[in-house]
């Protein structure tokens, strides 16, 4: 292997191992190709055609370099965790998942995630995929992954939290007594819209308590409390 390229792997500037790893391997294998002839997807296709065994060998080599430095041995633990297994198929899918998340290709991302067997993944890796899903707006996928992840990793507090927060809405009570006075606030907003348009107001049962040009100013001059029935809104 060309060790000059390895030495360019700057330990001090590591922000994202996935991105660094992907960029490094793309550069390593595609340096013979004219960049103008390759679009992102084509270069990625070439990359995915590379035997995943080679990727694993590179990973081992990079880990060796990392473990030889004081900072690197800590970083290498995190790096090992990001590529969750030495199984060739999983490594290949993980690289795809990271790439498709980075370029915002929802369809391919979903396809790649479906190829994974979650039982083979660490809690941190499942969490990473959930994070990608959330950032891509794939809420239901994130929800399903968090549920499955929480079942597989009952000891992992973070995954349990993800599952709790992303789980579907739950009706706790459907028999709250009526509050007819709420209508008075709507009436006040209708009647006073022209006068207070754009202003933030605090109103209770149709009575104006305070107004201000911004929410910040309103809450600074008027103490807003829970259970007060004082509605804070912008007209």
């Amino acid at each position, binding site marked *: 292997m060309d060790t000059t390229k390895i030495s360019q792997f700057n330990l001090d500037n590591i922000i994202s191992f996935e991105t660094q790893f992907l960029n490094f391997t793309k550069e390593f294998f595609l340096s013979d190709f004219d960049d103008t002839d390759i679009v992102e997807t084509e270069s990625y296709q070439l990359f995915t055609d590379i035997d995943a065994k080679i990727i694993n060998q590179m990973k081992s080599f990079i880990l060796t370099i990392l473990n030889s430095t004081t900072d690197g041995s800590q970083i290498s633990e995190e790096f090992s965790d990001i590529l969750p297994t030495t199984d060739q198929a999983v490594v290949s899918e993980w690289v795809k998942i990271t790439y498709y998340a980075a370029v915002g290709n929802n369809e391919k991302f979903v396809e790649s995630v479906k190829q994974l067997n979650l039982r083979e993944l660490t809690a941190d890796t499942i969490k990473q995929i959930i994070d990608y899903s959330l950032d891509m*707006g794939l809420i239901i996928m994130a929800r399903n992954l968090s549920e499955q992840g929480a079942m597989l990793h009952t000891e992992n507090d973070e995954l349990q939290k993800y599952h709790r*927060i992303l789980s*579907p*809405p739950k009706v*706790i009570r459907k028999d709250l007594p009526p509050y007819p006075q*709420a209508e008075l606030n709507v009436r006040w907003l209708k009647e006073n*819209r022209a006068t207070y348009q754009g202003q933030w107001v605090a109103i209770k049962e149709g009575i104006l308590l305070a107004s201000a040009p911004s*929410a*910040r100013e309103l809450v600074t001059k008027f103490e807003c409390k829970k259970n007060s029935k004082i509605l*804070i809104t912008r007209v």
Partner: protein
Amino acid sequence: MLKYQDDRPFSKGVISCSIRPIHPEINNRIFIQIEVEDFPIEAVLDTGGIYCVLHPVMAEQIGFDQSEAVGTHSQRIRGFSFDGNLFKAKLTIQAEEGSGLLQEVTVFVPDVTEDEWGDLPSFLGLTGCLEFIRFAIDPGNDQFFFSSIGDN
């Protein structure tokens, strides 16, 4: 209350809604009075949206515990991308007539200042928030009819 043809109730609660623009826009939106963690606010009904999305100053007043959040994620809201945190929170839809609802929903709290948030209000999205609530609007009488989908 609204009913199905076979007399089963469609809604069990009704509340007045305010149909007005988000100033300074001119297109009307449907504002509903709700309570998040017992804190009364108004939120715009956004059936294309996800979660209950809170105005940052309102979220600050409610006082979410950051240790209860999951990560920092980005959310597209009305064409803009905002970073923020996700929490689970109580959401109450009061009824002026009939029965109100208390739910636990996912809430997005944007990590921005009021200036960065601009004129956007709070939002009530479908997925993660209203997805199990049956609702209907009567714009002629400014009314929002609702019930839980398990309610008949």
